[in-house]
């Protein structure tokens, strides 16, 4: 193509810096949001992979046990008697370091002599001045990476205080590990290495191992070895592939990551509107020029290439800026993502953002792809410009008005298609999000028609209120529909996202509040401080349990024991429920008081409880049932210390504590099948008339300073639970805000374009006696009307979006049933937000137009 044409095109871009600048900003913000979320997700995933790789090393298989782990004798038997090599014992667990808030560590208890083939970072250790000897010969000694030690201000010979469950312990740093490469460095970031005996003492598991690592070769020799090992395993101990466990854990966060990704894409969709808007405007603005070029012999293909290339330049700069912005934003997002993973799923220590080149490449393609998609329609539009010198704006507008009913029809069809997609009985999240996006695009296509209708209704009202200028501003919105409709649609989408997500979070919170009201019925809750808020599996000291449950003022207490067990569905959270001291008073009949804390979705309480307490049946939470297609009456298999056992499901209960779901059995059933006698948490009922806050204080005194234990009143636990809830949605709020920001940029850009295009018309009005103030009023009332239309349309669209989020997306992601709560406040907020955004965006163009001399405006064209 002609160089002169390129030059002309580039100069056109440079002559409209604000138009291009806003477009670049829009696409940059869109890309930045997507990239930041992707980087944060990937960093979390990479950190998780690194930590599992670090811990699993080159092990191909692992021998794991139930609640109490694997007996140490099994290791000896395999190594010495059966001669299985390479083989290594591991005792591990997560601990907190109270002196360094926010940091969690993973204790890895190893046998340094068996480690060689498994984990390379221990091999360089012997050179390190006697650290290894100290580790093996002295109790309570540990190794830390030199970098982590430097971060914490520690040196070899110093002590580090850790909290294991409720107990505080101190470890002496026997030496420092010097990782040889970047991977080992990051792998060792949150690892504390001890010998087996120290780890067993720390976790109070004498004679037990967390697991035994094996390297089994592929092929028939390996298969034979596996058979030999399996034959030696006692009941309740299993041999599995090393990758299987980490994959299962990684699955847990998949829906969470996907939801964030989908939400972040909404910001990019709003960005697409922006590019579409800019390119359409740039084509309309140059209609005469394009007509002239066509008359001079420039082909359609050349015009198409020209427009698309311009878009690509904008897209490239915007995407580049977006990638940089995304990395910066990612540093903040990664904290929010890690926090949520720690609150909901597992302990993940993440100190820095991993900038994966693949993510950046994806961002680049996404940004450019979005730009191209957005520019395709205007580029085609430009090629259809007839090669004539004079093509009036009214031709374009009348063409658009011809398009309005057709776009509306397309919108209705798209919405219908989305509805069909939603009705398909599937658990696919992608299908759900696909339907959601189709719905949003469908509604966007309906926007021009809705705008025309609403303006028809508003015109007489505006006329009555503001006279001819009022009528003009309403008419102006329809006359320039090619510009206004896109701006309104972009704003409508962004505000409806705010409405939809707002209603979803509000409904979710209200459901959780109601659930907490019904499930938190005791007065005081005692649990060890947990590294994962939704779960506590560290045990309470039995003596402490005894002391607290018989304290003065305590009427009765029941206990929970939470462990992770193997099952054909992957790692499953099992809770053993004990109602030893059921509250007996006038209102409470036997177990009814405690058990009324459960609301059942499936099954009748009067049948469930006898089966649960007397016949060894299990009850499962709603997410667990949803995830694994289980119902009351189904049978589930769980790995116990006596081998795999089958349980009948007596009922399905509502539970919003964990999206992975839980299985509950009675303590009696638990003790029959598991050797573990520990207690994870204690629920206390106060005597009649006892002040709960005073009781909490006295129980804290009774627990003594040697136990780090959380003793919380009903109210405090409720508040803590809601705090976790709010923290979980903090990232969603950030995303909502960013999508709105992109939309604001879009509206500003559209309004600037619109008003500058009307410069001549306004110049004529000024020449005919319209004062600057009246021009200001005209422009502002028009932008206000656009905001009003966007706000009004965003309400039904937002509600539909909320319905999809609550009943489809959320259900498919997490398996929860939420009750929709529609607060008029959110709807009013949406209307105000749209109005405010539009009016704010209209201020600058209004001032600019009011200040422009009519002579100048008339001369331009």
């Amino acid at each position: 193509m002609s160089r002169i044409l390129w030059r002309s095109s580039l100069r056109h871009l440079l002559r409209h810096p604000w138009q291009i600048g806003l477009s670049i900003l829009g696409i940059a913000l869109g890309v930045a949001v997507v990239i930041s979320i992707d980087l944060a997700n990937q960093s979390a995933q990479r950190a998780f992979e690194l930590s599992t790789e670090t811990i699993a090393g080159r092990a191909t298989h692992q021998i794991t046990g139930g609640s109490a782990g694997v007996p140490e004798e099994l290791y000896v038997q395999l190594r010495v008697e059966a001669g299985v090599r390479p083989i290594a014992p591991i005792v591990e667990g997560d601990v907190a370091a109270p002196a360094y808030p926010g940091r969690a560590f993973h204790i890895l208890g190893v046998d340094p002599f068996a480690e060689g083939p498994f984990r390379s970072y221990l091999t360089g250790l012997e050179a390190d001045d006697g650290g290894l000897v100290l580790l093996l010969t002295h109790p309570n000694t540990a190794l830390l990476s030199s970098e982590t030690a430097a971060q914490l201000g520690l040196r070899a010979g110093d002590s580090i205080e850790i909290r294991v469950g409720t107990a505080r312990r101190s470890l002496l740093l026997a030496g420092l590990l010097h990782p040889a490469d970047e991977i080992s460095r990051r792998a060792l970031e949150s690892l504390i290495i001890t010998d087996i005996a120290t780890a067993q003492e720390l976790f109070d598991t004498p004679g037990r191992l967390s697991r035994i690592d094996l390297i089994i070769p592929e092929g028939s020799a390996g298969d034979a070895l596996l058979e030999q090992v399996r034959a030696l395993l006692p009941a309740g101990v299993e041999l599995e592939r090393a990758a299987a466990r980490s994959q299962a854990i990684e699955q847990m966060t998949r829906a969470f990551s996907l939801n964030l990704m989908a939400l972040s894409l909404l910001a990019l969709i709003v960005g697409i509107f922006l590019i579409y808007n800019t390119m359409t405007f740039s084509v309309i603005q140059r209609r005469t020029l394009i007509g002239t070029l066509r008359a001079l012999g420039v082909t359609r293909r050349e015009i198409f290439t020209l427009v698309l290339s311009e878009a690509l330049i904008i897209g490239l700069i915007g995407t580049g800026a977006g990638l940089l912005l995304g990395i910066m934003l990612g540093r903040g997002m990664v904290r929010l993502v890690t926090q949520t993973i720690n609150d909901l799923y597992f302990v993940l220590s993440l100190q820095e953002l991993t900038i994966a080149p693949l993510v950046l490449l994806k961002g680049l393609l996404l940004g450019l792809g979005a730009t191209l998609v957005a520019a395709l329609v205007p580029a085609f539009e430009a090629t259809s410009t007839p090669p004539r010198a004079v093509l009036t704006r009214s031709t374009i507008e009348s063409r658009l008005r011809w398009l309005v009913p057709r776009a509306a029809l397309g919108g209705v069809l798209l919405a219908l298609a989305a509805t069909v997609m939603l009705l398909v009985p599937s658990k696919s999240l992608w299908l759900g999000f696909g339907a959601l996006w189709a719905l949003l695009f469908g509604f966007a296509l309906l926007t021009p028609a809705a705008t025309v209708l609403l303006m028809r209704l508003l015109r007489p009202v505006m006329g009555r209120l503001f006279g001819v200028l009022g009528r003009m501003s309403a008419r102006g919105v329809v006359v320039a529909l090619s510009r206004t409709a896109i701006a309104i649609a972009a704003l409508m989408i962004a505000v409806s996202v705010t409405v939809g997500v707002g209603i979803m979070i509000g409904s979710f919170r209200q459901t959780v509040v109601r659930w907490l009201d019904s499930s938190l019925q005791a007065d005081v809750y005692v649990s060890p401080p947990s590294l994962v808020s939704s779960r506590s599996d560290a045990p309470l000291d039995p003596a402490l349990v005894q002391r607290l449950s018989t304290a003065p003022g305590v009427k009765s207490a029941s206990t929970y024991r939470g462990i992770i067990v193997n099952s054909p569905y992957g790692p499953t959270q099992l809770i053993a429920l004990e109602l030893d001291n059921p509250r007996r008073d006038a209102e409470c009949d036997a177990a009814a008081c405690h058990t009324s804390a459960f609301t059942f979705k499936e099954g009748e309480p009067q049948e469930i409880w006898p089966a649960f307490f007397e016949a060894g049946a299990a009850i499962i939470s709603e997410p667990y049932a949803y995830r694994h297609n289980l119902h009351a009456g189904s049978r589930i298999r769980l790995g116990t210390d006596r081998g795999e056992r089958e349980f009948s499901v007596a009922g399905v209960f509502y539970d919003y504590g964990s999206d992975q779901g839980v299985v509950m059995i009675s303590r009696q059933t638990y003790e029959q099948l598991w050797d573990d006698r520990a207690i994870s948490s204690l629920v206390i009922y106060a005597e009649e008339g006892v002040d709960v806050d005073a009781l909490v204080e006295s129980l804290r005194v009774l627990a003594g300073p040697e136990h780090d234990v959380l003793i919380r009143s009903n109210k405090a636990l409720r508040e803590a639970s809601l705090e976790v809830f709010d923290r979980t949605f903090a990232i969603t709020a950030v995303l909502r805000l960013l999508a709105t920001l992109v939309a604001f940029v879009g509206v500003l850009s559209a309004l600037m374009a619109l008003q500058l295009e009307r410069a001549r018309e306004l110049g004529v009005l000024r020449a005919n006696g319209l004062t600057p103030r009246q021009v200001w009023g005209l422009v502002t009332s028009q932008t206000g009307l656009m905001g009003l239309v966007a706000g009004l349309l965003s309400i039904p669209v937002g509600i539909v979006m909320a319905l999809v989020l609550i009943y489809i997306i959320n259900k498919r992601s997490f398996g929860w049933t939420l009750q929709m709560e529609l607060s008029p406040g959110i709807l009013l907020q949406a209307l105000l937000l749209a109005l405010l955004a539009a009016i704010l965006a209209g201020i600058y163009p209004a001032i600019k137009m009011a200040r422009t001399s009519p002579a100048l405006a008339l001369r331009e064209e």
Partner: protein
Amino acid sequence: MTSIQPQNNGTGPLIELRGLSKAYQEGERERVVLHSADATISRGEFVVLLGRSGSGKSTLLNLISGIDLPTAGDVVIAGTSITRLSEQQRTLFRRRHIGFIFQFFNLIPTLTVEENLLLPLELNGRVSAAERQAALSLLEQVGLGDRAQSFPDRLSGGEQQRVAIARALAHDPLLLLADEPTGNLDAETGRQVLDLLDRLTRQAGKTLMMVTHSSEVISMADRVYTIQDGRLVERLMEVAP
């Protein structure tokens, strides 16, 4: 990209209109703008097309340049039936063999005067040094040699139209089509522009077809056509005694 070459290079009439009709659909009814027009125009002729506003003059120019297609009939330019060409071929034909002058000048605002001038040449391929020199000498001939680096918005209307004339001639077309080239200029400037256009086209031996309202032009023309009620009629020229 190859341009379409004229079939009768240098011989025969330049433009032949054969039963050319054009009708537009306006709602339910059809409006006939041009009804079975026939005409033959030779090389080097200066033809003026008169008619009231909306009579179909510009439509005829659009049909001749291949911008628009007739409802019936044929346009043959230098032996090539352009109505039988594809859109792409018509564009390439126009790019190579036709020069356009518009009422509103339609210079490209983002290009300098020189770049505007070179645009048709560039569209046809790389510009040789000789072609570039010829184009710049055209700019001298229209009296704007010193404004080569100016952008169009720095020029007066008359100056812009002079650049447009130079641009229309720059790529040495067979045919020049001018759509009311003085319509947007004052009388004096209009006269100057007409003189320039007449001089340059005759000097280069080009065929010029001009749509105008100005009776002044009639005296300069070789032939005059009018469009009345959709019919193309040749007005006989009064021969000076």
